[in-house]
């Protein structure tokens, strides 16, 4: 039975029954994904919003109790599908934390590069779609053209444009090739011009600024109390960035700024995202030029990555590792314990709470999705603003329903 909007909206007292109830979504061009809002309107002003989610719930956490630590990476692709690489890295970062494996430094640098490219891609879509929703169509196309370049890089890196599934426990699918490195260099060379164009298009655009400044203000206290993270929290003046605060992978080696704003409105969130793109470019540049030589996967002693064929055929350790990893009753060595590991995904803190039970499948694979936490902010942010601001606030939060509902 589809739910009636009236049952979801908070009951209004008799004196306020002149309020309009408006059903927004789940299929609406400006929600971008399947999410639904029940809005209570007083004229054009939103006085109450009730999000109704779950339309895209596909039981990802339940599937995590069925697929093994390498197979599940395909599911993480489908969580935040506009930056799947960042999800892959987040998942295997958590798995490696649980198993106590440290990836090789080449692998760490490689993961940093793909994470930051994914962040650029995610931010381009997020600010682009926000611009589109408030009427800046050119800006959106500029962003999407550059996202296409990043997809090309990922395609040459791992063969898939969209659902990459690039990482593995203890390593990555295969090493980066000179062709890909050249493609990334080309992107680093060309992209700053487009970024400068994009900044010039909207940063001081009267219409855009009027539509976003002072809209959907999240104060610093509220951001902390409501568990915001990532660009949303940083736009409200919470200087928290896991890349700097808990330097996972190789983030400690790079020089970059944590971008913050204090206004906490839609414009600040847009601005922080654009500024972060510049910082990400700096990180990619540094990581690419200092990419360490050496193996990309951990060695056979860790018993996590399948050894190459030469090792399998010519060394006894290689043969044993190969058998151990492939036999159904062996697989990974996982401690009988639980841990939480988080990464700074483009959208905020993306963490996995993993419970290992000694088998090659997680006993529980909880995902801490930033979109879920941020969508809970929405009724608070939209209160008192007009109906046309709904899309601006939604766009600035960058809600991805696949990650929201999982």
């Amino acid at each position, binding site marked *: *039975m*589809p*739910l009636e909007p009236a049952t979801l909206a908070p009951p209004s007292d008799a004196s306020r029954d002149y309020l309009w109830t408006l059903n927004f979504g789940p299929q609406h061009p400006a929600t971008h994904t399947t999410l639904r809002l029940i809005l209570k309107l007083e004229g054009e002003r939103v006085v109450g919003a009730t999000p109704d*989610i*779950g339309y895209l*719930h596909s*039981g990802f*956490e*339940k*599937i995590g*109790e*069925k697929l093994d630590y390498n197979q599940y990476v395909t599911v993480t692709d489908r969580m935040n599908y506009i930056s799947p690489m960042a999800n892959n890295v987040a998942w295997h970062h958590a798995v490696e*934390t*649980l198993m*106590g494996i440290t990836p090789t430094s080449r692998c760490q640098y490689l993961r940093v590069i793909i994470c930051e490219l994914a962040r650029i891609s995610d931010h381009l879509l997020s600010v682009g779609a926000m611009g589109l929703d408030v009427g800046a169509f050119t800006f959106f196309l500029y962003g999407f053209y550059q996202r296409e370049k990043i997809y090309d890089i990922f395609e040459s890196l791992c063969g898939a444009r969209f659902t990459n599934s690039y990482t593995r426990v203890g390593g990555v699918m295969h090493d980066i090739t000179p062709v890909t490195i050249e493609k990334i260099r080309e992107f680093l060379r060309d992209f700053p011009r487009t970024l400068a164009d994009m900044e010039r298009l909207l940063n001081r655009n009267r219409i855009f600024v009027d539509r976003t400044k002072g809209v959907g203000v999240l104060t610093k206290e*509220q951001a*902390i*109390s*409501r*568990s*915001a*993270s990532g660009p949303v929290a940083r736009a409200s003046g*919470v200087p*928290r960035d*896991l890349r700097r*605060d*808990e330097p996972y992978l190789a983030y400690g080696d790079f020089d970059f700024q944590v971008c913050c704003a204090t206004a906490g409105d839609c414009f600040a969130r847009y601005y922080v995202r654009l500024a972060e793109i510049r910082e990400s470019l700096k990180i990619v540049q540094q990581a690419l030029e200092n990419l360490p030589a050496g193996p990309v996967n951990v060695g056979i002693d860790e018993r996590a990555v399948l050894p190459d064929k030469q090792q399998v055929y010519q060394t006894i350790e290689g043969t044993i590792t190969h058998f151990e990893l492939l036999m159904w009753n062996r697989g990974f060595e996982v*401690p*009988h*314990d*639980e*841990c*939480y590991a*988080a990464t700074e995904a483009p959208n905020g*803190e993306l*963490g996995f*709470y993993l*419970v290992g*039970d*000694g088998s090659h499948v997680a*006993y*529980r694979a*909880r995902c*801490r999705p930033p979109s*879920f*936490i941020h*969508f*809970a902010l929405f009724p*608070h942010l939209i209160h008192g603003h007009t109906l046309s601001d709904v899309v601006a606030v939604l766009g600035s939060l960058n809600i991805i329903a696949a990650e929201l*509902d*999982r």
Partner: protein
Amino acid sequence: MNRPHEVAQAILSRCQGATTSSFRDQCRVQVPAEHLLDVLRYVKQEAGFDLLVDITCVDYLHYRDATERFGVVYLLARTESAERLTLRVMLSEPQLELPSAVPLWEGANWMEREVYDMFGISFQGHPDLRRILMPEAFTAHPLRKDYPLQGRGERHNFPVLTRAEA
């Protein structure tokens, strides 16, 4: 500087029956359900763990050496110094009730709704404890270990709505 461990020791001295453990440099404290709200208030207001990162739950039905069924996990962090602390409360049927953390953190609202939806643990004092991901008419709690991965609750179990009925 080892602040999470100091906080853990402080919790141990404040509340009877708490235990602490550590794994991969993560400090964890297990507290009895009746002390949960006191401990949460203490870690937020006095120890400065002001950010509630996540609330989740684990069903230990088939877990080796587990004595109680559910473990509700509170992941906390300090925004100032990037330290983390994990609190866990063990629960068994039929006492599946916990005090809500919404008075302390507004962000707990949806997290607790999700735990309620997926595991059936009810939070006392929650302003709006409804299912969040599953439909209202759903009766089971799908992330419990006794809920099968395939079969029950799938598409073919639901009535097909025709255009005339909708």
